[in-house]
């Protein structure tokens, strides 16, 4: 079995003081390495989370179309060996085009959109592909530090095949001027790893006269879950 621990610098630390909320929430004692023989990693994680027909189109969940720039977000979910992860749940959530979440604790004085909730889900196909239609989210302010703004982002949640492959992350958009100022984005030490969270504009995904396409491929941990000798 290959050691599954992460490649140095590609994951954020638990304590990252520029992101203030980590200070009272990041565990301070060292984590204990759990031997994988005992973690039942092969078993699936989620129960029956039903997927509805419109769940991957966030522009058609209400009686009218939401305000903002319609976009397509699509990509593939692979494991660390480049193998597709089929039939796995992909969930996303985001703010609307004005930078406001449909959430009681979001007090940003930007308008809610009666035609936009901002949550979607889908399953990857046999080749690990997923596709959403949504609205490009806006940037929004937060109180982490003076004049703090989050770059536009979409939250992603994936399960993969086990507890080990669980991933919650954020997808960003190319050339956002807020990147140098965002402690959440910059909590990842490795610059190339940070860049992999930025989706790429893709003309092939773009639908003529309708919507721009952005590609976001996702790599889940899990290489270690199958010993080499068992592979064809």
């Amino acid at each position: 079995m290959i050691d599954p621990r992460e490649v140095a610098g590609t994951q954020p630390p638990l304590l990252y003081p520029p992101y203030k909320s980590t200070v009272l929430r990041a565990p301070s004692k060292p984590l204990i390495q759990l031997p994988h023989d005992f973690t039942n990693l092969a078993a699936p994680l989620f129960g029956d989370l039903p997927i509805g027909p419109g769940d991957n189109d966030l522009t058609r969940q209400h009686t009218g179309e939401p305000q903002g720039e319609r976009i397509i977000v699509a990509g593939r979910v692979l494991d660390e060996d480049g193998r597709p992860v089929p039939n796995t749940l992909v969930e996303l959530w985001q703010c609307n085009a004005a930078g406001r979440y449909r959430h009681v604790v979001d007090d940003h004085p930007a308008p809610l959109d009666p035609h936009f909730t901002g949550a979607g889900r889908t399953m990857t196909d046999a080749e690990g592909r997923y596709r959403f239609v949504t609205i490009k989210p806006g940037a929004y302010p937060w109180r982490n530090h003076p004049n703090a703004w989050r770059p536009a982002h979409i939250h992603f949640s994936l399960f993969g095949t086990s507890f080990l492959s669980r991933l919650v992350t954020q997808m960003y958009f190319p050339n956002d001027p807020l990147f140098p100022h965002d402690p959440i984005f910059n909590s990842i030490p490795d610059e190339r790893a940070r860049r992999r969270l930025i989706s790429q504009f893709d003309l092939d995904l773009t639908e003529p006269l309708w919507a721009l396409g952005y590609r976001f491929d996702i790599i889940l941990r899990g290489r270690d879950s199958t010993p080499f000798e068992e592979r064809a």
Partner: protein
Amino acid sequence: MSDTARRIATSSQTVGPFFHFGLAADPGLGRIAAPDAAGIHIQLRIRVLDGEGVPVPDALIEVYQADADGDFPQQAGAGKHGFSGFGRLATNADGMCTFATIKPGAVRSGAVEQAPHVNVCFLSRGLLRQIYTRIYFEGDAGLTTDPILGIVPPERRATLMARPSPAEAATWDFVIHLQGEDETVFFDL
């Protein structure tokens, strides 16, 4: 798939404070075992406190456990009758959430037996990545020989114990201390 070049896992980012309408909209995920599932039915009540002892009102807690026989469901949604094995809830304003479940059985793998336990994946605003812990049941006969507790320093093992509520029947309380003297043991996978 012929492309087997080694890839680097996508970086984690915080779940943030606004996940509820995306990940915690279904309160049914608080029910891991239906009323007619086999086993001893319990309420598993989890409370989360930060480094100042203040309740964490925006955590997302995912739990994964074996059934009363110690078996994990082998496919999503394919557990024994009335048992999903998986739950997901957000904490409330008091930093609490409660799962309706059954006490898991001891989990056997070969000659090794793990004491009954519930696996926890924990996410919240202020955590840039998920952390894992395990809930054991205080007083269980298998605790002394559990292989995972065996690698936890003895003085910290108590942080992994759920305790029966003194006031409510069939209710077990587990407190997650993110920091401090009683900081819960967290695991790296």
